[in-house]
């Protein structure tokens, strides 16, 4: 036994970068909401970027480490503690056996990611570790964590960096974390953009929208000025994706998030660019966002730049991790 859930949070689950290749049979990709944070947690440990992580919401689980390992937390700041001492974000930490990780307070963001050096002993479902709660498949038993769930570690020798009672040791390297309170979300026009009345296009591009409490891993409901379509048209069921902004019949918007359905029947007026999905994934009920149009070339460039950064962090961290192991043995 290596890691145990002592107290269950509201929605903590195993995720990776998603399950692709099955959308034609209605199985959505799912995966981490903030894929940048999920990848950077793995990158900082020198892990493969596609390794599974634990996605943590607040109130969060309390997690007991039964073996010594190295962890990294990224994404939301939920004020993480081990034995009453604070843990940093985006910086690897060696944790001793019999230490308890707790999250005390929601400070910023909506989702925190925990990566572990020792890969959890889990089985992929359809090529992915992501938890699909609708299909009760993937991740840990196809569901969110419950009290006493235990995950074993594999693929790595036991480590003994910490002696005696020292609860943890923060390692020397880290990545920068950014905190954005007012969120500008960049978008590409959707297929039904031109169904909007001129004034509605202006509202979409200039007004502020509030993320309502009716928001979850499937989608965010927004509240703002009413948006109208020119003449009452109906869309037949059509493909949608993570970040698709749909216009609901009453004139309000919904942004589809990681656990979206594969098809939908509401006009797709915009698509949030991949590079800004992490920003959106860290937005919370009550947060205010606005939309800004960009073009395809910039959207691609921004995403590829993020991927390059992650790759660099991963390469550098892997090197540091190897040096650490070499020093000890």
């Amino acid at each position: 036994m290596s890691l145990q859930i002592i107290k269950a949070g509201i929605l903590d689950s195993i995720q990776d970068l998603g399950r692709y290749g099955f959308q034609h049979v209605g199985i959505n990709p799912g995966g981490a909401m903030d894929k940048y944070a999920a990848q950077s947690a793995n990158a900082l440990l020198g892990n493969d970027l596609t390794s599974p992580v634990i996605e943590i919401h607040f109130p969060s689980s309390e997690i007991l480490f039964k073996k010594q390992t190295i962890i990294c937390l990224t994404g939301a700041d939920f004020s993480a503690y081990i034995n009453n001492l604070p843990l940093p974000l985006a910086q690897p930490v060696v944790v001793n056996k019999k230490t308890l990780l707790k999250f005390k307070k929601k400070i910023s963001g909506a989702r925190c990611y925990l990566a572990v050096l020792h890969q959890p002993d889990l089985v992929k479902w359809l090529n992915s570790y992501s938890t699909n709660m609708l299909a009760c498949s993937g991740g840990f038993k196809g569901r969110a964590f419950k009290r006493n769930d235990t995950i074993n570690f594999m693929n790595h020798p036991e480590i003994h960096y910490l002696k005696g009672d020292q609860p943890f040791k923060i390692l020397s390297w880290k990545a920068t974390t950014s905190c954005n309170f007012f969120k500008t979300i960049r978008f590409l026009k959707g297929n039904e953009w031109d169904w909007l009345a001129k004034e509605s296009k202006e509202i979409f591009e200039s007004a502020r929208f509030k993320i309502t409490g009716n928001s979850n891993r499937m989608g965010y409901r927004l509240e703002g000025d009413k948006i109208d379509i020119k003449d009452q048209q109906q869309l037949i069921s059509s493909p949608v994706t993570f970040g698709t902004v749909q216009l609901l019949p009453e004139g309000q918007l919904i942004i589809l998030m990681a656990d979206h359905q594969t098809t939908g029947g509401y006009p797709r007026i915009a698509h949030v660019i991949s590079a800004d999905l992490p920003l959106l994934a860290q937005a919370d009920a009550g947060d205010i966002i606005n939309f800004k149009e960009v073009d395809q070339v910039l959207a691609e460039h921004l995403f590829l730049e993020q991927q390059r950064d992650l790759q660099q962090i991963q390469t550098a961290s892997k090197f540091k991790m190897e040096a650490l192991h070499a020093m000890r043995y």
Partner: protein
Amino acid sequence: MNAEVSFSVIGDNGILIDFGNTIDDALNRRVFDLFKQIKQKKNSFIIDVIPAYSSIAIFYDLKNVRSKNADAVSCFENVKLQLQELVKEEMSITVSSIRKIKIPVCYAEKFALDIKEISVKKSISIDEIINIHTSKFYRVYMIGFLPGFPYMGEVDDKIAMPRKSLPRITVPAGSVGIAGKQTGIYPITSPGGWQIIGRTPFNLFDKEKDQPVLLYPGDEIEFYSITENEFTNY
């Protein structure tokens, strides 16, 4: 190439090819042809494809496309060019390659939660509803909404019914329903608004299998009626 075919973005890593906003057998066959061709090509940069009624979305790996085409203006333009070639080809699937599947349905009232209401509203006997529903092959136009949920059509006008105004909180797995001129089957227990006229003992979604869903876009389905006893012992 059809002049009405449009190519647009669906997110910054997807292309939407739209043949028109209508439910039309011929358009759906074009979507299906294109879907088959894309699958056959096995391009490594294509990560997912969603065929729908009259449009299809193709998602690609930006890193993969960019690494192979350093000079392309955008990955989108590059993938679009390749897909335009495929749309031109207009391959037609031979009839013999279409899978035909018979699906048993028990139309007994304990499963057919809405059949009485349809019977009253459409002034048609329950037996007639069953006869009409089992009288033809339905095409799986697309899979969506839930893992393995087939959108099939078209049902006869005599039994066509709009969705329920208040969706049920729980529709049991296997429930066979009608929504407008479409018929469908719930692969897993879920909330839903389709008018339920029966239940199949077939398992449309089994997570343990390598191919976890039973039905695929392009399949043709024929329903046949079974008794409650047959359902129980299936």
